[in-house]
């Protein structure tokens, strides 16, 4: 009888919602939604199957940080050493100089509910923690960042089809094995928007699998005409049009050893509601290819290249984000130049190699991670710009941005002798213009990493970073308007304590 009732409820739930009890109004917790297409009502307490489950995952990293500068002529009551939070060092996210040596605060909470076939996921995120912020900056509380469905379609055992629909992020060209890599910057693009992505995997023979992905995405809206760029709206740019993107990817996985992919993106804006009516439509194309080798005891290697061709991207919104620039104007600020009219080309190559001594010694047997280990990582990225903006005079100069050819490389070595302790050191070299060494800088970062176990998912990282600057290296002035391109002297020393956990 119970089974029958359950099935009846399941049947009814697909047609209409069940309130908890008879009442004249709706349940306060019922979604603020009308009837869904197809005559289905969203009832939060109904469910159509018995195997529904709730999942909670997330990640956060919270830094205690201080950059130390100096006052050349301290006044009475002033110490000659200054303390800055965040440290005044070059490498804003979105600029080529970003190294991820000292990542900023980030929290995301992933709430999922679903079955083995369909899941709904909502991600709440923030770039700050309000209790620790020096001021309340609304854009830092991202709020509901993503909301999407995942459909794992039933298929034969040798194939797999997955569909993502809603608002979500796709990342292509990530240099780490399971993360975004040491630079936390995808080589191809980060795609954020509303839309749909379909992915498929088919087995071709014994050791080869074919992979394909295709997607169409777009903005939910655009900054309305008349919007005044202010801090609370993240300096919204009414000149941006509604932006759309399509992208496709083909790849092959050979013996779970080599993973090869080719990628193509097109993003465009053809909006007549941009504030500059005479501006041409924006268009940007990216294509690239990459290879990932999972070489068992010999390590993990990623290498990729991408080529971007931008045409008048001044009104291009942030759906396809190249090297983590947030939109067309940001691409101009960081690479093409503010006098480029948004037209230019970029070519980027990147590589990362990760090695584990314990894995090498144990190979081909798999290393569990439950023992001392020495790990090393080497990473590299270079971007070549081809732009018409050759301005060198302030205020629209190319000072502090990727100029001609920019290059960065580095390495990290980490020794974990105890379950709770890792001793590590990282070195980074950043050349913002390979033709001008005065725009280069070097970072040396020794680290102590505390964790709760060998394979724990938590870290407290205590680190010191020493910056060695060329004479023409500066940090964007202590404002927070991203359009501000004036620079001041940077801190040479920084300490941080990062608390991080992922689950």
């Amino acid at each position: 009888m119970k089974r029958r009732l359950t099935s009846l409820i399941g049947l009814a739930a697909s047609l209409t919602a069940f309130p908890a009890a008879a009442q004249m109004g709706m349940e306060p917790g019922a979604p603020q939604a009308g009837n869904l297409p197809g005559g289905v009502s969203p009832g939060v307490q109904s469910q159509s199957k018995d195997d529904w489950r709730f999942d909670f995952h997330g990640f956060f990293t919270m830094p205690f940080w201080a950059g130390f500068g100096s006052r050349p002529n301290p006044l009475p009551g002033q110490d000659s050493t200054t303390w800055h939070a965040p440290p005044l060092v070059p490498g804003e996210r979105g600029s080529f100089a970003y190294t991820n040596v000292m990542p900023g605060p980030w929290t995301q909470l992933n709430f999922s509910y679903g079955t083995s076939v369909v899941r709904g996921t909502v991600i709440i995120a923030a770039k700050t923690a309000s209790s620790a912020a020096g001021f309340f900056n609304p854009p830092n509380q991202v709020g509901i960042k993503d909301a999407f469905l995942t459909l794992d379609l039933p298929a034969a055992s040798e194939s797999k089809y997955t569909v993502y629909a809603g608002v979500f992020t796709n990342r292509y060209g990530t240099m780490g094995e399971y993360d975004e890599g040491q630079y936390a910057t995808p080589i191809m693009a980060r795609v954020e928007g509303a839309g749909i992505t379909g992915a498929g995997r088919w087995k071709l023979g014994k050791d080869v699998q074919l992979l394909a992905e295709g997607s169409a995405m777009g903005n939910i809206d655009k900054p309305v005409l008349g919007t005044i760029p202010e801090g609370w709206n993240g300096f919204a740019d009414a000149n941006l049009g509604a932006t759309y993107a399509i992208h496709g990817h083909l790849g092959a996985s050979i013996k779970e050893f080599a993973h090869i992919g080719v990628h193509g993106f097109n993003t465009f804006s053809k909006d007549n509601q941009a504030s500059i009516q005479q501006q041409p439509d924006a268009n940007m194309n990216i294509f690239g290819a990459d290879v990932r080798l999972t070489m068992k005891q010999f390590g993990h290697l990623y290498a990729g290249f991408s080529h971007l061709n931008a045409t008048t991207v001044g009104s291009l919104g942030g759906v396809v984000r190249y090297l983590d620039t947030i939109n067309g104007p940001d691409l101009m600020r960081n690479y093409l130049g503010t006098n480029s009219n948004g037209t230019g080309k970029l070519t980027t190559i990147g590589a990362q190699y990760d090695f584990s001594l314990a894995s090498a010694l144990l190979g081909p047997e798999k290393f569990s991670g439950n023992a001392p280990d020495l790990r090393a990582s080497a990473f590299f990225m270079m971007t070549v710009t081809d732009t018409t903006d050759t301005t060198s005079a302030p205020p629209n100069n190319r000072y502090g941005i990727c100029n001609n050819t920019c290059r960065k490389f580095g390495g990290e070595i980490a020794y974990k002798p105890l379950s709770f302790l890792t001793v590590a050191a990282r070195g980074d070299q950043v050349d913002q213009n390979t033709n001008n060494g005065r725009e280069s800088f070097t970072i040396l970062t020794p680290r102590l990493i505390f964790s709760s176990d060998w394979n724990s998912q938590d870290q407290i990282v205590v680190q010191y970073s020493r910056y060695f600057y060329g004479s023409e290296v500066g940090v964007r002035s202590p404002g927070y308007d991203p359009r501000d391109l004036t620079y001041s002297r940077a801190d040479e020393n920084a300490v941080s304590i990062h608390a991080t956990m992922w689950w």
Partner: protein
Amino acid sequence: MPITAWAQTAPAPAPSPPATETAPLDAEDPTGLDPAAPAVDPPAEPVALEENTEPQATPTAPPVDTKSTVPLNEAGPPEPEFKPELEPEVFWEGDSDAHNPGYVPGYGGYRALSMNPVLPRAGAMPGGVTAPAGSDTWDEEWAFQFHGYMEATLRAGLGNRGTTVDGQSDTTIHATPIVPGRFGSFEASQAVPGPWVQMNFSYGNPYVTATAIIAGFNQSGAASYNYPSSQLGINDAYLTLRAPRMSGLRLKAHAGAFQDRYGAMAQYSEGNYGHSMVAYTRGTGVTVLGDFDIYGDIVGLFEIGIKGTLDKAPLGIEPTDANAYADASNGAGYVTHAHFGVALNDMDISAHWLGAFGHDDRLPTTVVRPGQPVVADSPDGRIDTFGLTFRAVGEPYGHFFFGGAHTIAKDARSVPRVINILNADGGRGLMDQYFGQLSGGNGSMTHVGFQYDMSLQKFLKYPVYFPSNDWNIRASFFGALVHVNSPQKSTNLPGFDVNFDNVTKLKLGSEVIYDFVSWAALGLRYDFIGPDLAQSDRGYQIISPRILFRTNFLSHEQINIRYTHWFYGDRVIIQNVAPNDPQGLDEHMVALQANMYF
């Protein structure tokens, strides 16, 4: 013997509920992952260090140190247990490799052309460890916990128009009521209940727990306008690490963005005034706390920590509602703090020191020239607080707290809210509430307070334990006194005769609750507020009868309906309302509040 830590290390809501007898959040779940995190609720239970630091004795959670002796790879990944729900015809993210570590230690999902949308926006972790969220580990009992607190209120302040025109009633109705006692001022008494919601999401095992708290001091569904800064969003995000038990020593640490509160007046919350008598800290950083056996039942306590702000308000920012009136005159700020004490059974006495400072040259007078050092002429600021607290809890006499501190501020204008004294944020808060705008952030103040809570039935039935399952009368008595010295003698605002130097402030109050049935209680609260004992005409009294409804004697929820009447002196002052303004202040308030902690 669980002992009480000084700080309510986990963030509790800003306001505290009426002093009803409340169960600690995890009272029904003594094996909770982090009794501190529940601190989540206002009647937050003090941290029971001994319980926290002891790993739960489950077969799957052996002590950490035994794992360190595992020979290289001998343990290896266990054989995956067949779980039908994890072996569907299709893949779950991560399930295909859930028990199969990647090359770099860590566990990932099935390799595709792109990263899974659920994976975090994060680069490689320091030390070469990857960060695949959604994967599991095989060796601990991981658990998800959801706690929180909510209070939602309907409030109506009733005042009178001085003169009326056609179509106007003589009675005005205000929300929020126009009454003195703004949050952050000495006069705050929690007479006006405020909206507050926080949701604590925790995930962890006996050794480590991550907690993220989403909070807001407004509820958009009831708000009359969009007030972005009332939606705090992710307010805290921190790790709790618990060390394996060591002989005579118990240790744990918090790291990340969280709050430490010292001098909480009540047993499980900040008390009837909703502020800690010593200070509390905000920011990101680390606090290590522990206790150690001294002799017999005598236990030593200690806490040390360092924190800083994540950022500072940038130069040129315009203070508006949207950014909570961001103050570019605040620099980046840091606070170090240390606390030592001794506990004997249910008594403890503790000494506290907190030192906050800022050495930031990015202040409004800063000169910024491309390529040149920034130059500011503001002096570096500093705030030091030295405190002493005493707490005793014992059947049948109740709970008693007495404590206070002495705060010295020097050029503190630029010190941000990494330190908070009596809910006044940083140097700017001290200037607004105590020292005056022309003080330059200089001054000193001594602040002391007490609270005593007792239960008649516990007293009458002693030594038989009374589990609060029958009628009862409970009473609380509380008070706070502040003496201020400031280089600014009085306000410079014309028409306001307000002194800042050599001022003594006093507030006293009491609340009595009569639990006559399991689902309802009657209460009465009285408060005297004296903003300056030398200016008696600025003082006032508050009487607030109330009726409380709930599902049981010791339930976690409450609906209370209260009427509050203010008896004002001749010259009561609140912000934006001039003294003696005939239509300035509401004398009556009715309020309905629903609250629950879980």
